[in-house]
């Protein structure tokens, strides 16, 4: 029974890895629902003895003990910035991806290489130059300034991903549609787009999560409630000598939940991929 022995070993390894990934997240969620005394307790209290929503009340300004933090405003900023940059990145990614997958043009390979090379530059290394330029042109502390930076981060990735999905769709499908009476434009929307939908959805969710969770650049480029996003808002919980761990974790939960819900909705597309039955495989 060497087989089952191996299987158990693999399961154990998977368990360890998953624990390393999941426990900090779980800890954040648990911390969000306990009171400060338990958080500071020595030895630590593993399972909260009393679950409470006080932390959420506090940061939403519904309790008298603490001053509220403009969570709603941060949330709105986050939504505006993430949704706009995602929609634009996906649209541009679709156009670029389709062009790279379907057309031959001069400098195509070089252009693609540069796009990919731009991914090798750590975004944070650009924060100082971006900050200086943005402050000159007055984009500091604006939604638009952050959206622009996120677009630059996401577009190479969405183009690359969507290009791959369009490449998998045989050219003959679009040709068949054109013979069947479609214009090139109709052939795209009726045939190629529905078939690449899963790829486009994947690109969208990746772009959204990048924008939704990004902290380093946003923390440089935003100043006030005019443009501060949720992750940057987390810093509001650190004071000179203390950190409000429970409030911070409560807000982290507020950040995680929408991303989680969205991922679950799109999940089907992320793993499905299409079965290309239309042509001989």
């Amino acid at each position: 029974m060497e087989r089952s022995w191996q299987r158990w070993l693999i399961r154990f390894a998977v368990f360890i890895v998953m624990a390393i990934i999941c426990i900090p997240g779980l800890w954040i969620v648990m911390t969000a629902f306990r009171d400060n005394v338990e958080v500071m307790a020595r030895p630590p209290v593993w399972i909260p003895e009393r679950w409470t929503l006080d932390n959420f009340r506090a940061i939403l300004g519904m309790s008298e003990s603490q001053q509220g933090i403009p969570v709603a405003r941060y949330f709105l900023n986050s939504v505006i910035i993430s949704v706009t940059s995602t929609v634009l990145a996906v649209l541009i990614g679709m156009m670029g991806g389709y062009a790279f997958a379907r057309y031959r043009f001069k400098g195509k390979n070089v252009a693609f290489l540069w796009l990919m090379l731009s991914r090798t530059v750590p975004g944070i290394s650009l924060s100082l130059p971006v900050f200086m330029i943005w402050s000159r042109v007055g984009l500091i502390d604006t939604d638009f300034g952050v959206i622009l930076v996120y677009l630059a981060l996401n577009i190479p990735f969405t183009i690359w991903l969507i290009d791959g999905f369009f490449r998998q769709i045989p050219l003959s499908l679009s040709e068949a549609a054109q013979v069947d009476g479609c214009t090139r434009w109709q052939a795209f929307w009726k045939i190629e787009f529905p078939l690449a939908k899963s790829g486009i959805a994947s690109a969208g969710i990746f772009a959204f999560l990048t924008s939704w969770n990004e902290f380093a650049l946003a923390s440089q480029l935003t100043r006030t409630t005019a443009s501060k996003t949720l992750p940057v808002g987390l810093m509001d919980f650190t004071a000179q000598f203390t950190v409000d761990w429970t409030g911070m974790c409560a807000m982290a939960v507020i950040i995680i939940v929408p991303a989680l819900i969205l991922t679950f909705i799109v999940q089907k597309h992320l793993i499905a991929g299409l079965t290309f039955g239309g042509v001989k495989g």
Partner: protein
Amino acid sequence: MAEVRLEKLVKSYGNVGVVHGIDLTIAHNEFVVLVGPSGCGKSTTLRMIAGLEDITGGTISIGDRVVNDLPPRARNISMVFQNYALYPHMTVKENLGFSLKIAKQDEATIEKRVAEAAEILGLTPLLARTPGELSGGQRQRVAMGRAIVRHPDVFLFDEPLSNLDAKLRGQMRVEIKKLHQKVKTTIVYVTHDQVEAMTLADRIVIMKDGHIEQVGTPAEVFEQPKNTFVASFIGSPPMNLLDATVATEAGRKVARLTDGVTLALPAPAAEKVTDGQAITIGFRAEAFSPVGYGLYGDNEVATIERTVILPEPLGTETLLYTELGGKEVQGKMLNPRFVKPGEQLTFNLDLSRLHVFDKASGKSVLV
């Protein structure tokens, strides 16, 4: 009326010419097969008719319209692709009805025409399935169904059977032939398989390197090949081609093979050659049979003793590989008996079925 006319049609990619000015007229309701080896330009020609490739030069007309600059959708054609190109995200029914929906036909018409096409091709029980749930032959039929629902002027087939296994290919060949009888339309069909060409075509167009080598009915290209390329491309096994020199013996023109064997040339060809001319003679395996096992009848024959190098039994006949004129040739034994390798047999070569080509040009001396 949907006559397809190609005039001085040229296609090149940059400096590389693919099709070099071909002329061809395809009559209304005619089934024409373009056949040739890979890279001969047959698929490119078809795609130019479809409007999927730009034309470098010349004109294409369908009916009485020049379609050079019309997009595919405006040409009233339909096309069956080699990989079927069914839309994977639609059911069979949606696949069949797609072109009608694009043309904004009303629901009832679509329903009726789809049902009609499904009936002709036996697809009625499969209408609710998606292409992924169909077998190769079924997909092939859906692809054809999608082509016929539109009642197009011209059907284009681009190697439609090459993805199927041998047995299914035979079946689908018959279905395509039947389809043409039911749905009278002009058909242009591209294949590299000369058997498909022979069985399906009203007329065969044999192409090589972007030129048309010969156009004719299957019988014509088989019986009267215009050059050595057509002779060796059409027919299976390929025609035996041997180098020879013309000489006169006992007042008759003969071909002297490199190993000294002489063969009297048939009357029409004999008048077109001169002594000393280098020629290539050709004969098919069925013209070269062991005595008593062939169809030479009362024709004049040359009787030749040969050793069988390899017999290849096929059931109703046996192919015999032997040697003549310094080259390996194939003979055919009808209603065969068992033959051992190395066996000595007396062959009759039917001289009336000799083809004579000029060696330098490769052209038949009769044209």
